[in-house]
Every structure is written in C-alpha cells, then in structure tokens.
C-alpha cells in the first residue's frame, strides 16, 4: 500500500504544481491589469485635482492682485503694503500672500499676510527670476510680466508657490497655497486603488482555482483510468461528455483501451489454443505410451534369451520408451503449470528423510554428500519436493560431477527452508545463467547433452514457485562448480505462500488445516473444495 500512497502523493504534487502554475498566471494577469488601470486612474486624478486647485488659487490671486495691489501707490508704505497683503489673503482661498514694493527708490519694503509661514525665503530663486524677468512686448506677448507658479515641498508638505508683478513699477506679489489636503485626498485614492488591486488579485486566484479544478478533475479521472488500465483492468473506460479537448482526450483513451483489450484478448486466445494443443497432444500420446511401456517391460524381461543381434534393439526400444514416457510426463506437467491446474498436496514431513529417500531411490547415495539434520519438519508436497530434488541433483551429477553436496538448513527467521545443491564441475557460463530455468534451453555445445527432456530445471522451478518458494542458480564464489539454492516456505499453506495458496486449497487434502482437532471431516471438505 505504501507504493500506492506514494504515487497518490506524487500525483497530488503534480496536480498542485499545475494548479499553482494556473494560479500564478491568473494572478500575474490580474496584477498587471489592476496595477496599470489603477496607475492611470491615479495619475489622471492627480492631475485633475491639482490643476483645479492650482487654477482656482492662481485665478483668485490674479484677481486680488488686480483689484488690490494694482491700486496701491507706486511707492507704498509698509503699512499700506501690509494692509493690502492681509486684505488679499483674507478671502476664502486659504492662501498666504507676500507683497514686495519700494518705499522710496532703492528702499524695498515687504509685507506678508502670515509672517510665520511665508517669507521671501520660501520663494524659489528661479521663480523670483521668472517673475521679475521683463519681457519684450510683441504680437504674441501682450504684457511685460506674467504669472508664474511652481510646486515646492516644505517640511515634507507640498505647496504651490505663484508670483506676479504689477506693470509700471507696481509691487510684486507672491502666493503660497498648501496642497496638503489634495495630497491627503490623493493618498486616500491610492489606498482605495491598492485595496481594489489586492481584491482583484484574490479574485483572480479564486477564479484560477475554480478553472484549475474544472480542468484537473477530468485530468485526474483520466490519470486514474490510465492507472487502472496499467494494472491490467483492460475494460476500463471513461465517460465522455462534451466536445472540448478533454472529451476528445477521453475518447482517444477509450479507443486505445479498447484496441489494447482486443489485442490482449487475441493474444491470450492464441496462447490458450496453443497451450490446449500441447496439453491435448501429450494426453493423446499417453494412451499408446501406456501400452508401449507395458509391452516394453515384457520384452525387457526376455532380453537375456533373445538373439544377441536383437537384444540391443530391444534394449533401445525399452530405454527410448522410458525416455518418451518421461518427456510426455514432463510436457503434461508443464501444461498443467501453464494452465494453473497444478495442485499442491501438502503433508508434514521430515525434510532430511525426504531428501535421503529421494537420493536413495535413485541409487545416488555414493555420489551425493548429504548434510541434513533430521527433525526439520516442513509442510509441503513431498512428491513435488522429490521432483525438484531429483532434477537439481540429477542436473548436478550430470553436469558437475560427483561429489555433489546437498545441504539442508532451516532459516528460522524467515520461516524458510534452504536446500543447497552444489557440484564441483566447470560451473555455468555467465551468459547461460539467466536461462538455466528456460524450457528446452540448450546450454552450449560443449556442455554434455542431457538425456532428460530439457524441461527438468524448468519444472523444478515451477514446483518451487507452486510452493511459494524459488530456486536460484549461481556459480560458487571460489570458482569450483555451480550452486543451486532451493528456498521453500516451512509451511506452504501459510498465507505468505502466495502462489501456493491456490494450489494448496485446490489440492484440498488437508483435513488438519481447518476444523477442530477431532471433528475434521476431511471427506466433506475435500468435496467442497474439489468442486
């Protein structure tokens, strides 16, 4: 299950990343749009507000200059100037006024409506120069002096400073208008725009989430379906709805799955029929072979009394009949494994006894060096163990030469039985090693040709697998011969036996495995499982 969980997590990350990309793109688009819209709005607003404030202040200042400052005498006194300045600043415009004049020739006087706040020092030099700059009259220029203005910053606050001069030697007037209120308004506006931008950002992220979900849901479904297909559920199909690209993808998926399913069905049908053929063929061979075997034996008994010219022929018939019998038997065994009908008939046996009996029955005792302690009890199919051992030891004797060493030891930790068969022959060439358990694999021309069916090791392997075990082939590290290690579970009926579980159940001859000790009616149980 950890694999599945990991896959789900990785899938989750993948979804997140696509989702994340969508959200980021949406947010970027929203941010660009909102920022540029707000920026333009802010800038236009700022210009409009400032221009209006400025225009009204300067207009009013110009009028005040014309109505009040222009009526001053050419050489006004300090108090006249002061009164006029106060009068000019007294309107509702909210600005301060500074007036400069000459009491006498060369004796300047200045008056300010707000002496704490507005002096000549507050007027930038450049503005003074511009205001005092007398210009030539021309067609395009009707007056020698003009009204000039400039925005300045004082103590961190914005101000508008304007100035003008009355023609014909009148006084010069300056105006100072605080723009603080306008700035505050504009700051409020900026804040509002910022909040609107943030809201747009959040909105876009939510939209992106929604969009991602609508896109990703079909993608996830497709992913799930593809995984199921990969797990071998070839009948997996997607529900196709709509006509968008995702629906098209689903349709393509369905088409692919369908053709895959068809192809696999074709292949397994072909495989099944060829397997059936082999099974039927070996079955059919058995009938004549039974008659042949029985008669060959009669012939064999008579060999001694036969013509010496005929005797070798009879011997050949007898031995080849036996070989044919083994081949057919092995073929049938292989088809049984292929069809999954091979059954494991379990019994509790002493492994050492079984190994000894197997060696003894084939008259191998002199050629085999057995290292097995009695008392190792295992639950397995004794006949299949015998087949495995006979094939492994027979193979070792044939190719490796004696002494073949067979050692049996339990692996208590993994509840496993290890049987090692090692010979002292030339070993197995590295390129052959992966194929030693293949059917009819011809090792090499140099290797003595086996007189077996070419199925022995393959059948040994199948038998081991049927028990939930395995066989490994290797060369001895010291370079002296080949080592085959058979691993079998101590109890092939245990759930860990995996592959063997079906076999063991199918065998169904296991009255001990279930039911109370004395109530076990294995006959009924066997019937049940045999059906």
């Amino acid at each position: 299950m950890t694999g599945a969980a990991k896959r789900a997590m990785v899938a989750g990350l993948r979804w997140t990343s696509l989702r994340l990309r969508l959200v980021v793109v949406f947010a970027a688009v929203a941010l660009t749009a909102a920022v540029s819209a707000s920026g333009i709005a802010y800038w236009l607003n700022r210009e409009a507000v400032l221009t209006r404030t400025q225009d009204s202040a300067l207009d009013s200042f110009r009028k005040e200059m014309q109505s009040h400052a222009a009526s001053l005498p050419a050489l006004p006194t300090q108090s006249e100037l002061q009164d006029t300045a106060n009068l000019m600043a007294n309107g509702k415009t909210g600005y301060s006024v500074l007036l400069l004049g000459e009491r006498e020739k060369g004796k300047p006087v200045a008056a300010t409506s707000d002496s704490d706040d507005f002096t000549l020092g507050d007027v930038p030099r450049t503005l003074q120069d511009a205001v005092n700059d007398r210009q030539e009259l021309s067609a395009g220029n009707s007056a020698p002096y003009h009204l000039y203005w400039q925005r300045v910053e004082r103590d961190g606050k914005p101000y508008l400073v304007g100035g003008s001069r009355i023609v014909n030697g009148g006084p010069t007037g300056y105006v100072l208008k605080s723009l603080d209120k306008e700035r505050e308004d504009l700051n409020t506006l900026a804040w509002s725009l910022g909040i609107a931008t943030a809201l747009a950002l959040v909105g876009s992220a939510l939209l992106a989430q929604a969009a991602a979900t609508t896109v990703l849901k079909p993608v996830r479904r497709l992913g799930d379906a593809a995984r199921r297909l990969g797990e071998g559920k070839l009948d997996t199909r997607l529900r196709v709805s709509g006509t968008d690209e995702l629906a098209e993808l689903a349709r393509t998926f369905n088409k692919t799955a369908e053709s895959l399913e068809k192809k696999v069905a074709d292949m397994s049908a072909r495989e099944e029929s060829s397997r059936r053929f082999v099974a039927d063929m070996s079955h059919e061979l058995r009938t004549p072979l039974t008659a042949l075997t029985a008669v060959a034996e009669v012939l064999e008994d008579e060999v001694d009394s036969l013509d010496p010219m005929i005797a070798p022929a009879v011997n050949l018939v007898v031995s080849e009949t036996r070989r044919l019998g083994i081949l057919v038997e092995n073929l049938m065994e292989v088809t049984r494994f292929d069809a999954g009908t091979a059954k494991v008939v379990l019994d509790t046996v002493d492994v050492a006894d079984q190994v000894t009996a197997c060696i003894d029955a084939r008259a191998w005792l002199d050629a085999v060096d057995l290292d097995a302690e009695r008392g190792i009890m295992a639950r397995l199919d004794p006949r299949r163990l015998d087949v495995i051992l006979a094939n492994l030891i027979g193979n070792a004797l044939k190719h490796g030469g004696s002494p073949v060493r067979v050692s049996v030891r339990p692996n208590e930790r993994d509840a496993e039985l290890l049987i090692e068969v090692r010979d002292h022959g030339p070993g197995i060439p590295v390129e052959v090693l992966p194929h030693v358990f293949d059917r009819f694999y011809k090792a090499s021309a140099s290797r003595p040709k086996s007189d077996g069916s070419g199925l022995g090791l393959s059948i040994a392997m199948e038998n081991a697998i049927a028990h939930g075990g395995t066989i490994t082939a290797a060369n001895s590290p010291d370079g002296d011969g080949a080592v085959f290690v058979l691993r079998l579970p101590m109890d092939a009926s245990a759930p860990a036996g995996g592959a063997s579980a079906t076999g063991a159940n199918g065998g169904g001859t296991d009255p001990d495995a279930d039911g109370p000790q004395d109530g076990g009616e294995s006959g009924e149980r066997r019937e049940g499982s045999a059906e």
Partner: protein
Amino acid sequence: MTLVPFLLLIEDDDAIRTALELSLSRQGHRVATAATGEDGLKLLREQRPDLVVLDVMLPGIDGFEVCRRIRRTDQLPIILLTARSDDIDVVVGLESGADDYVVKPVQGRVLDARIRAVLRRGERESTDSATFGSLMIDRSAMTVTKNGEDLQLTPTELRLLLELSRRPGQALSRQQLLRLVWEHDYLGDSRLVDACVQRLRAKVEDVPSSPTLIRTVRGVGYRLDAPQ
C-alpha cells in the same frame, strides 16, 4: 484366497488392455478383461475375481460409477488406472471406494507390486482380538463387529483399522500408515490415507462427522482411541 491371483481388468483401449493383460499374465496373475464398465460388472458377478484393475475413463458408465456399484455389494480390492496423479480423478476415485491408484503410463512391475500389496492386506497375521467401545476386532477371523453386527470392510480398511488398533492411543502419521497399510515408498499419496479414514469412519463411527474412535491428530495423522 487362491494361489494364483485372479484379476479383472476393465479398460476400454484395446492396446492398453492387451498390453496390460500380457504384462500381468507374465507376472503370474490370471486375468479376465472387459472393455466397458457394464461388461466388467457382469464379469465380476460371474467370475468372482480377487481384485479389479479399473480404468477411470470408460465409455458408458465411468470408472467412478463402476467403483461405487461394486462397493454396494462387494468389498474386494479395486485399483484405479488414472490419467494423472494430482487431479480430481484421484480424489473422486478414492472417495468412490478405490483402494489404490496407479498413473498411466504405468509400468507392469509397479502395477504388480501394488496388486500384491493390496492382496496381502487381507491376510491374517495374528489370532487375538481387541475391543474399542462397541467395536470388536477379531484378528483371527479377520472380522470386525459393531454392537455384535458384522461390518463389511474392504481389505484396505480392515488393514488400516488393524494397524491403528495395534497401537491404541498412539498417533500414526500418514506416511507411516502409507508404509504399513499400502506398502508405498516415501512418495505415497497422503490422500489415500485421508480417503480411507473417511470411509472407515463412515462404517465404524456412531456419528462419522464427529468421530470418537478414529481421531485426527493435528499436524501428525490419526490414532485410535477407546471412547470414554
């Protein structure tokens, strides 16, 4: 028991029938043959053979049915000829009442050894008797009575009961029983024991599904107890 065993071979394939007849005759048996189950049952009634060698795959009534019909009236040994050792045939065959089975292609010597082993089971070995509850085993007469009534046991069932009764209260493993009763080598099929125990229980136990005499010993085999 006659000196020369008289066998009935029921086998539909001509070649196999001829070959096995030839082989068994050479091994010193008297052989009658039948090609179908029906003919075989007729021959059985007319000629009273000592043992039946029965092919499983027969036209008409199959080997299992022949086996069941024989068992209704007779307890003579039956050896099945089956196609393969690990399939359903063996299990069904043994449940139909067969005493042993051999797998085709069979060697004449193997079949002969099995036949002789089966026939030996009916031979008397000692002269005492033993009682287990309501069950009385008379080893001199080779009879078993339950509540005074004679039980019809096949030689194999009788031998199994004798071997168990010889060691009352002691568990015998399936492999031990295979050696003692069937005279099989180390590769004997433990299903033979299980099937025979089932049949024996059906005959000797009061309630075969909860046996009190022939008890299963988990992970070991079977033992015979006198009920308390």
